[in-house]
């Protein structure tokens, strides 16, 4: 049960990452590898501030802001300097590796003694219920774990709702159209380059927020924690689309959250069954490859071309 709760909680925390990747990949069609660096940046900033005794909410917000700046830099490299989007992301990700080490001062910052959102949440949960464990459908569950799960759920739902509302405003609608048809958006008087920078900042802000929360949940920030996370996000988005079967705005966001949770659960089950953790990234990459290629192949098999 602890395992299940843990997987659900991490899945929910990483759903913020999935929503960030959804913005860059589905709206702008940019596979933005800045993600790998900005999730670590968010974790690093939050961890260092928390270790120094900063208010956890402030530290988390600072982490998200750091990611937003990183995303904006990628956007500026891409639009103002006309560097290929993928390369812009690679440049910023590479630079962020050094930046992250500088922020943390070493390759790993533990948060065991620090007051974090997670430790606050555990305490609030225990004081509200007054018990260390509670009974859920016959399962005995640590109150602290349940409290963290609820907090992660709250964060995911809140972020998803804000994102949905944002994309229905005038700015948000123009941003979506930028990915859909930049020529038209320009002809209607919107600054396409500005929207790309803003969108990548929003995307990486969400990713870094996810990193900041993840660091507090797992109790440390690590320079290596971002490796392969963009692929993880892609996997979540793709699973989400398969689950909801829709490209509509609301369902895509819900799908990203559900995809992230489901993917994390699948990984937890696979690890439990004895999957070598070293193979995890390989499996993830293979999964995304299959998810990208299979729909086209299936369509071909179903409807053979007229020869």
């Amino acid at each position, binding site marked *: 049960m602890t395992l299940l709760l843990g997987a659900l909680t991490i899945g929910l925390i990483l759903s913020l990452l999935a929503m960030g990747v959804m913005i860059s990949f589905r709206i702008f069609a940019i596979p933005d590898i800045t993600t790998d660096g900005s999730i670590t940046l968010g974790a690093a900033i939050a961890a260092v501030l928390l270790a120094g005794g900063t208010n956890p909410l402030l530290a988390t917000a600072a982490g998200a802001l750091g990611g937003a700046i990183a995303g904006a830099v990628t956007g500026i490299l891409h639009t103002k300097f006309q560097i290929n989007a993928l390369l812009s992301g690679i440049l910023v990700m590479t630079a962020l590796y050094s930046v992250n080490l500088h922020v943390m001062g070493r390759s790993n910052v533990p948060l065991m003694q620090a007051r974090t959102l997670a430790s606050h949440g555990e305490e609030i949960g225990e004081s509200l219920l007054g018990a260390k464990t509670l009974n859920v459908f016959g399962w005995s569950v640590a109150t602290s774990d349940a409290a963290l799960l609820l907090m992660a759920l709250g964060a995911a739902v809140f972020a998803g709702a804000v994102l949905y509302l944002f994309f229905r*405003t005038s*700015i948000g609608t123009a941003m979506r159209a930028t990915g859909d*048809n930049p020529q*038209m958006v320009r*002809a209607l008087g919107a*600054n396409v380059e500005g929207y790309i920078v803003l969108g990548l900042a929003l995307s990486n802000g969400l990713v870094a927020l996810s990193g900041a929360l993840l660091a507090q949940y797992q109790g440390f920030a690590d320079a290596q924690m971002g490796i392969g996370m963009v692929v993880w996000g892609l996997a979540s988005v793709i699973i989400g689309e398969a689950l909801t079967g829709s490209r509509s705005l609301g369902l895509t966001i819900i799908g990203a959250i559900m995809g992230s949770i489901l993917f994390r659960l699948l990984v937890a089950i696979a690890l439990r069954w004895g999957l070598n953790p070293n193979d995890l990234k390989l499996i993830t990459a293979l999964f995304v490859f299959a998810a990208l290629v299979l729909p086209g192949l299936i369509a071909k098999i179903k409807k053979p071309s007229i020869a």
Partner: protein
Amino acid sequence: MLDLQSIRKTFNPGTVNEVRALQGVDLTIDEGAFVVVLGMNGSGKSTLLNAVAGSFYLDSGAIRLSGNDVTRWPEHRRAKLIGRVFQNPFSGTAPNMSIAENFALAAGRGQPRGLGWALSKSLMAPLRDRIASLKMGLEGRLDNAIGSLSGGQRQALTLLMATWKKPRLLLLDEHTAALDPKSAEQVLALTREVIGRDTLTTLMVTHSMQQAVNLGDRIIMMHRGTVLHDIRGAEKKRLRAEDLIDRFDAVRRREQLDESAAEMLRASYL
């Protein structure tokens, strides 16, 4: 209203792909005029339109539009004054977004966009009425993705979007050329209606002689990046399609003569 002062543009200068698209075009268009730009392929007529819209910056010359020197304005800034319809019906609309959302974008043309709802009530009611007036049965499908519509429907909607907020200048770039004859006729009728209702200052590129004769009050004939003929007033009213074809033939003959003459000189003297 619109004033072009000896504008020049060369693409890929100094390479084998060098194209001297505009070679000193002077043109003044009055408020409320409907100008048709005619020309053969490569004559620079679309380039002229794109120069006005701001798709690229000029090599030299100046563009003034309703009292502003817009020569160095980026495309999105000029869009405050300009409404555009492209040749490709897919260019003017965002396919994965709904009809209503596309119009919400058009309704904010040239204004700073804020955090208000894109689909406000003040937009939806007039939008439904206007789209119903098209009689295409689209008023009940405002939430459908615009990509699910036909090219003719999309082009009609693009025209409405371009003129939703009255533009100071309307640019039409062969906007019926990619449509089937029936849709083209519909879009053309709508074009007439929209331009007539608001007496919009319009610059329309076409290669259809018939359209040029039937529409507008002035014809600009472009050739090799310059204005060859400027036909207006009574002469424009009398003009028939055959006259235009004659003028094009004259151009073609002169060019052949030029080339054969050059060939003859080369053969005799080199």
